[in-house]
């Protein structure tokens, strides 16, 4: 059994990153994410890792990608405005297939919005923020322990899929403190990117293994000389305008997520077995939803919780299945209704959907959700 600690969410993210093998962090301060940088500036040098405070978020994202290409597991963290700045280079990492973890501790928006208050406005930006429209993995913790575990999972998935992975937390989850147990190192599953086994001369950096459609990844400086670009490229990594090669790359980028889709569904449920109303919530709001459901159960309402833990890909199938067993779904969220659209899309009319929004950057309370449950029932 590991050590019991009383940690802040942001600390759990930082320490989870180190346990996952992250050895490079580049960032730029922004509330409510700054503790992640502060903690890593102290912790990374102790394990021989690198911390650098860059001149801005664009540079941080760029440096993190560069370090990953040179062989280190790397990460950056930010909040809304900084997340927007990182988007162009997140797209670069998608196109060039570079593993990197981007933490976005959401705050109120749009623009500088409310720096110290919680909000869930980046649900769509996390998925669609970069241009080009390609798959992306987004995880969202609700507890401090999950901040730790999902950071490790984010690093593993990034390495596994050679893709950026977003860890979408929020001000409440990032700043609250909870008791948690740190696992022993041997208990933690670590995934490392696949290395090439070909000779230096035969290596083509974007020739994918047929079984998973993911190309083995050499690091700069290991002896292979290869080219990486954000332009559409052939197997050699060299730019091309050939529509056939372009299409083949685009299809492969889709296929690698399709083939790995078993790893790309993650949700949790509570009290759903006999439920006839379902609350669907993520991040900090899922905590209030748990409270509301406990209260509702005491009052005899059959309510359950469905919490997408991986927000993207959205858990369409399990949610549709859950929806077919209930009369109604309530979607409480702290934004103008970003997730409720996804819920409606996913369940294809299997039941009624009710939206509960809060836009004053105050936490949605269990009481509010309970009221809505009563109203819907």
């Amino acid at each position, binding site marked *: 059994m590991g050590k019991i600690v009383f940690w802040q969410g942001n600390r759990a993210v930082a320490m989870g990153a180190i346990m996952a093998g992250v050895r490079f962090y580049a960032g730029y301060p922004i509330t409510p994410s700054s503790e992640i940088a502060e903690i890593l500036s102290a912790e990374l040098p102790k394990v021989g890792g690198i911390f650098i405070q*860059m001149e801005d978020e664009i540079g941080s994202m760029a440096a993190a990608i560069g370090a*990953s290409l040179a062989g280190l597991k790397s990460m950056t963290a930010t909040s809304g405005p900084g997340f927007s700045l990182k988007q162009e280079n997140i797209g670069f990492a998608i196109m060039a297939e570079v593993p990197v973890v981007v933490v976005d501790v959401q705050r109120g928006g749009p623009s500088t919005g409310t720096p110290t208050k919680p909000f869930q406005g980046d649900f769509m930006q996390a998925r669609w923020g970069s241009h080009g429209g390609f798959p992306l993995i987004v995880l969202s913790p609700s507890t401090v322990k999950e901040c730790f575990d999902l950071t490790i999972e984010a690093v593993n998935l990034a390495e596994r899929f050679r893709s950026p992975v977003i860890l979408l937390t929020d001000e409440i989850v990032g700043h609250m403190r909870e008791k948690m147990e740190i696992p022993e190192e041997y208990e933690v599953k670590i995934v490392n990117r696949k290395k090439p086994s070909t000779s230096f001369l035969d290596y083509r950096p974007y020739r994918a293994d047929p079984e998973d459609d993911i190309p083995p990844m050499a690091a700069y400086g290991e002896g292979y000389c290869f080219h*990486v670009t954000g332009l559409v490229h052939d197997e050699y990594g060299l730019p091309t305008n050939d529509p056939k090669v372009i299409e083949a790359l685009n299809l492969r980028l889709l296929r690698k997520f399709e083939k790995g889709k078993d790893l790309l569904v993650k949700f949790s449920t509570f009290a759903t077995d006999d439920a006839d109303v379902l609350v669907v919530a993520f991040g900090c709001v899922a905590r209030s939803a748990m409270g509301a459901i406990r209260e509702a159960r005491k009052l005899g309402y059959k309510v359950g919780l469905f919490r997408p833990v991986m927000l993207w890909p959205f858990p369409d199938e399990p949610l549709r299945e859950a929806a077919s067993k209930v009369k109604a779904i309530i979607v409480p969220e702290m934004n103008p209704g970003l997730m409720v659209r996804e819920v409606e899309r996913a369940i294809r009319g299997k039941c009624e959907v009710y939206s509960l929004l809060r836009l004053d950057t105050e936490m949605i309370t269990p009481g509010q959700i309970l009221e809505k449950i009563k109203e819907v029932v």
Partner: protein
Amino acid sequence: MPRGNIARFLRLGLFPHIFCAGCGHGIALHALVRAFDSMGYNPEEVMVVSGIGCSSRIPGYINANTLHTTHGRALAFATGIKLANPKLKVVAVMGDGDCAAIGGNHFIHAARRNLDMTAIVLNNYIYGMTGGQASPTTPHGAKGSTAPYGFIERQFDLCNLAIAAGAVYVARATVFHVPQTEKFIKRALEKKGFSFVEIVSVCPTQFGRRNRLRGPVEMMEWLKNNSFPISKAKEMSPQELEGKIVIGEFADKEMIEYTQLYQDLCKVAQEEGTEE
């Protein structure tokens, strides 16, 4: 005929290159690989990073570790690479717009930080790839596709900027001055710390055409007749120097390098730790 064994630094299968006839960037590419060769480097230890633009296509032709990034961000990507693997000889190749407009912030901070790398700007006074729009180095009064009445802004002196930001080695040559170009690149590669070489290049297609320098030959002659070594420039008045190119080495100083400092910091952290 190329000197030395530069073929090992070229992806020969990719030639002919995409540069327009008369473009100066090929001369710079040649000087760069010659410098690598005469430094005795092996392709596996060389890392060439670029942003976006015509000049930023250079790494594609170089047989080494090469990375073509996003517009303006070459030095930020290079920072991550150098920190992750300090053994690599890191060179960033950028255009004037790439380095000084969109990438200006990374440029001054990379120079200030003094990471061991060499930044090379191919300054053709114009945004070449996007069609001849004015750039921060477009001369006052010159024409560009977004400056049809003449550019009214002041021209940026990138060497002065690099010196002010703390680069330990700063030099300028032109694609007409081939031996100097190669010599300055070599000095920059040797130098421990952030070194900067500006190579004034020519863009007959986008700059020359609009500014009465009809073809490559006229542009080269213009470079020849308007460039002065520092020694000569010292005797010239500001009026005489107006619109001229001063070439030579402007800075060469010693400053402790960043990866060295970082390794020392790691030792401190590992010995002392910090309070939680």
